[in-house]
């Protein structure tokens, strides 16, 4: 499935014209992907997205600024574009059981923890396991250690993140939503890893 999971099965080439603007159709040059954000509350999920969406300057893209749903298109070097539709989830424990409603059909999952909080790292591992069990089998997963600017308070070693990500076939990066460090790199790297629909 992967990113093609957002393609309605029934859409034939003939119908693509009507669906391409609002519908779930991507073509080889312009991907549209659902990205779900998971992680404890307070790790900075929303800040990462806000930084990504506001930091990009693209006069042609109409950025939808909402509080918990945001979309942003990035252009890659091979002249393709990827439109991320970013679904935030609620981090508090009482909403954990609702997560499957949000990650169903997602092509990308970004699992975020706070490098100053071992509890949030444990929670991130819980989400990775849950996605492996119940998520889309082709989902592209990224593990993100946020708040890298607080290095003096670090409690989760970089190597722990790298090791865990590697063991689980994930992309790993440490970011700082505060300084914008590695924010664009995170999304560009995800874009590169997306499976492409067969080019027409």
């Amino acid at each position, binding site marked *: 499935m992967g990113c093609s999971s*957002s393609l*309605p099965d*029934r*859409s*034939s080439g*003939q*119908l693509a*014209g*009507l*669906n391409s*603007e*609002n*519908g*779930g*159709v991507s073509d080889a040059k312009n991907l549209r992907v659902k990205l779900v*954000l998971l992680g404890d*509350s307070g790790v900075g*999920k*929303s*800040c990462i*997205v*806000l930084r990504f969406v506001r930091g990009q300057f693209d006069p042609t893209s109409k950025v*939808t600024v*909402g*509080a*918990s*749903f945001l*979309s942003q298109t990035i252009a890659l070097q091979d002249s393709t574009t990827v439109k991320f*539709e970013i*679904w*935030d*989830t*609620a*981090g*508090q424990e*009482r*909403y954990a*059981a*609702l997560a499957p*409603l*949000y990650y169903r059909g997602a092509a990308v999952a970004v699992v975020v923890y706070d490098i100053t909080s071992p509890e949030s790292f444990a929670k991130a591992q819980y989400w990775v396991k849950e996605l492996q069990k119940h998520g889309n089998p082709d989902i592209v997963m990224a593990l993100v250690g946020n708040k890298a600017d607080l290095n003096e308070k670090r409690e989760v070693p970089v190597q722990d993140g790298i090791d865990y990500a590697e063991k689980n076939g994930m992309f790993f990066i440490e970011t700082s939503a505060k300084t914008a460090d590695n924010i664009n790199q995170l999304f560009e790297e995800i874009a590169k890893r997306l499976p492409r629909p067969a080019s027409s």
Partner: protein
Amino acid sequence: MEAAPSSSSTSTSTSSGGSVTFYDFLDRMRNPASLDLVRSIKSFIVSFSFYTPNPDNDGKKVQDFYLSMEAAIMEHPLWAAATFEELDSAMEGLEKYVMTKLFSRTFASVPEDAKIDREVSEKICLLQTFLKPEHLDIPAVLHNEASWLLAEKELQKINTFKAPREKLLCIMNCCRVINNLLLNASMSENHALAGLDDFLPVLIYVTIKANPPQLHSNLKFIQLYRRQAKLVSEAAYYFTNLVSAKTFIVDLNGKSLSMDEIKFEESMQAARLTQTNRATQIETSPTLQGQTDPTPTRMHDKEKDTSGGSNYPYMDAEAGELTVGDVERLLSLYKDVVTKYTSLYKVVRHLSISKTETPVPHSEGTSFLLTQPEGTNTKIDHQKGN
């Protein structure tokens, strides 16, 4: 009667304007050139009456029909030079038309759904008696009764519409009100935006305060019958959030809230008792004078209407439009009417007021009549219509 829900211009996927679109669709369908399309639509609608309701199958049938009609419209001479927007409008018109015709057959069409609706609504009634924003840890900066009320009203409008798109718009509008509240708080109060951690608790609280009618059936109806190409992106996200709020409420127990578990159970029990008492009171004293509230078990039910017609919302209804879910309300209205009638009769018994009328039921389906949510009937008729 009702205007289509307004959609803000910033909306990406739900904004093609309401009634104008629809009248344009009806106009084109009256054109003799579209006779073939009208025939397909007609026969599709008729075909539904041959089978007993099966929501999942019905949803698939309708979605397949949308797609085949989409293909037919794209190739149709009437739309030969149509832009993307015009084709999309035609499809929106088609969805509204088909689902308005099939509404009574597809909305809350199985007893299980009516049962879930009742259970959700009853649980919300209990929660309304004691739930406070603090129990969901809604930060004080987001306490805004005016915004909440506005969001509730948007949600409560959901049953005024029959078309899936318009029902979905009610949800979108409710969510927009909440988003505005969050954005304002973030700007004026320096509240750091916390994404869904802020949004979801407010939506849950608003949903409980609103107790939107037939919440489960409305969500299921949108899921099954909104064109799939349109239930994506932002619309899908906010739709999912209301599904999420409903799920949370259904599963809600002493552990779900920031509240002592024993206190939660006590509050629920107290609320149940109060409700049972109220119900018994009404049953044992049916001649109670001055009983004005026709739906005493619905704590949050609707604004007080002054016009007689809106106190008796089924006056314009036809037998085919009623669902099992309406029985409770109908019975309650019936009792109310009988009570009032009896009192009135005692007072003015010297007058002859026993005039009766036998209404002539209209049989639906014999003519290709369209019942629009706006309340006007439009006939698509190739002999007369052009």
